[in-house]
């Protein structure tokens, strides 16, 4: 492809610009007309979506703390945020699905940073620096095969990631009757993790049946969190965390009723579950504490 000198480039632009100024059309009314029509359509579209959203709301709930349900376009609002709430599937707004899907692809602790930091940073650098990467002076698409293929690839990749990112986890099976299983299945754990014994199918975090964390690892992770996993030390008591960690260590990759390979390390299990009590009742406290 031809390389222009800086002077040729500048003069080329100036010549073209002067030519277009001379043979152009005034901004008003031509461009103003087009812009006004499109802006009106866009505002009408936003209003239309809003009215459709509103039209599908259910009645105002009698319980003031309940969510107000909706139809196709989602509820008016969900129930008030509650850190202790159990079994919620976290999902971002649709335009973050592509990042959310990266999180799922690189879900193991060692690779997590690839999905959360490395790839998004590369994308941002490429986006901002693109004019310095594409040095081809020609603007006609027929002379820009590489740029054109990138321009087709990027939306395909983003739409694919968005599509898979929008999928909610499959319904899990039934939880076993082992101590801690019901709490695991009903709790925040189930939203992100697969654990056959608890019948959960969350697809955000590592598959525990494969990761097989030992007791100490599970205890540290539940207590303090890591990567995109939240810390639960404010949500659960020590006994409850110990119970969950013991349960995960014992029953991850368990075959039938035989405890898994890390069972021996799960100290205090299942005694801690008895101390913690049934379904960890009364834990949804301090939801909004400062």
């Amino acid at each position, binding site marked *: 492809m031809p390389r222009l000198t800086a002077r040729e480039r500048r003069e080329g*632009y100036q010549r*073209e610009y*002067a*030519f*277009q*100024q001379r*043979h*152009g*059309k*005034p*901004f*008003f009314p031509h*461009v103003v007309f*087009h*812009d006004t029509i*499109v*802006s009106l359509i*866009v*505002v009408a579209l*936003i*209003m239309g979506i*809003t*009215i459709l*959203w509103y039209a599908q709301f259910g009645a*105002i709930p009698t319980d*003031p703390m309940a969510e*107000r349900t909706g139809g196709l376009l989602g509820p*008016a*609002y*969900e*129930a*008030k*945020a*509650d*850190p202790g709430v159990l079994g*919620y599937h*976290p999902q*971002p*707004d649709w335009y*973050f699905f592509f*990042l*959310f899907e990266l*999180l799922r692809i690189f879900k193991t602790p060692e690779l*997590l*940073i690839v999905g*959360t*930091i490395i790839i998004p940073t590369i994308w941002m650098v490429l986006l*901002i620096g693109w*004019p310095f990467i*594409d040095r*081809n002076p020609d*603007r*006609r698409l027929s002379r*820009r095969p590489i740029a054109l293929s990138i321009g087709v690839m990027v939306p395909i990749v983003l739409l694919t990631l968005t599509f898979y990112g929008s999928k909610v986890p499959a319904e899990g099976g039934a939880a076993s009757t082992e101590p801690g299983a019901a709490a695991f299945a009903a709790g925040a754990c189930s939203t992100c993790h697969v654990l056959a014994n608890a019948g959960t199918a969350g697809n955000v975090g590592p598959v525990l049946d494969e990761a097989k964390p030992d007791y100490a690892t599970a205890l540290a992770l539940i207590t303090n*969190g890591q990567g*995109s996993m939240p810390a639960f030390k*404010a949500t659960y008591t020590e006994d409850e965390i110990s119970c969950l960690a013991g349960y995960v260590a014992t029953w991850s990759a368990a075959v039938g009723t035989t405890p898994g390979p890390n069972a021996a390390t799960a100290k205090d299990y299942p005694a801690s579950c008895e101390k913690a009590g049934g379904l960890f009742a009364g834990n949804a406290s301090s939801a*909004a*504490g*400062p």
Partner: protein
Amino acid sequence: MSTLLPPPKEIAMLPVDWVEERSGAISFGKYMLFRNVPKDISWLQTLGSALITVFILQATTGIILAMYYQPTPETAWMTIQWITNEATLGWLVRGMHKWGSSVMVVLLFLHMGRTFLFGAYKYPREMTWITGAIIFILVMGMSFTGYLLVFDERAYWATIVGVNINGTAPILGPALSYILMVGPEIGTHTLSRFYSLHMLVLPSAIGGLIFLHMLLVVRLGVTSPPWSRMEPTERDV
């Protein structure tokens, strides 16, 4: 008597002339309105102005929402509920703000795609592209900070995951998470920090960049489509 007064048309022009003499605003406005743009620019090149419209819409609905919304864990969700259920046309204002953000992201993608296909980021318009790309990233930041403010279940958990993603960055990550949440947990200060970012820091940054972006567009001229005749022929010169 009538000879003492100038004709009515001149009286009407007095304030206009006064402003023009002191600021040049009138001739600037005339230049902006009647400057020539390439003959063959078309409907494809209306997305930028549509984005400005949506930005103004978001600012206006945002200002109205800010009059009722209270960013504390106790009141945030209650005020959203009140705006949606009780306030006159509150659902419309909140709904247009909510859906306006989605439409804005879609329009940004289309605007960027159009710029890409037209090769409109090439010399001498590199800076226009860079300001636009930064606006794009900041708008994503607007979406992220706005999400928590509703303070429902979805907002809460999505924000935790989002903040933890920042936390995975090497060295700065944990500090960044801590700064975003103002502590290890989402609480009162997290909400007010997100609120301040969402309605003061990011919008003013975006507004400033939009101004710069448009200044560059006017200075460098709108890009004609790549299929238009690029060079003057002998007949034109």
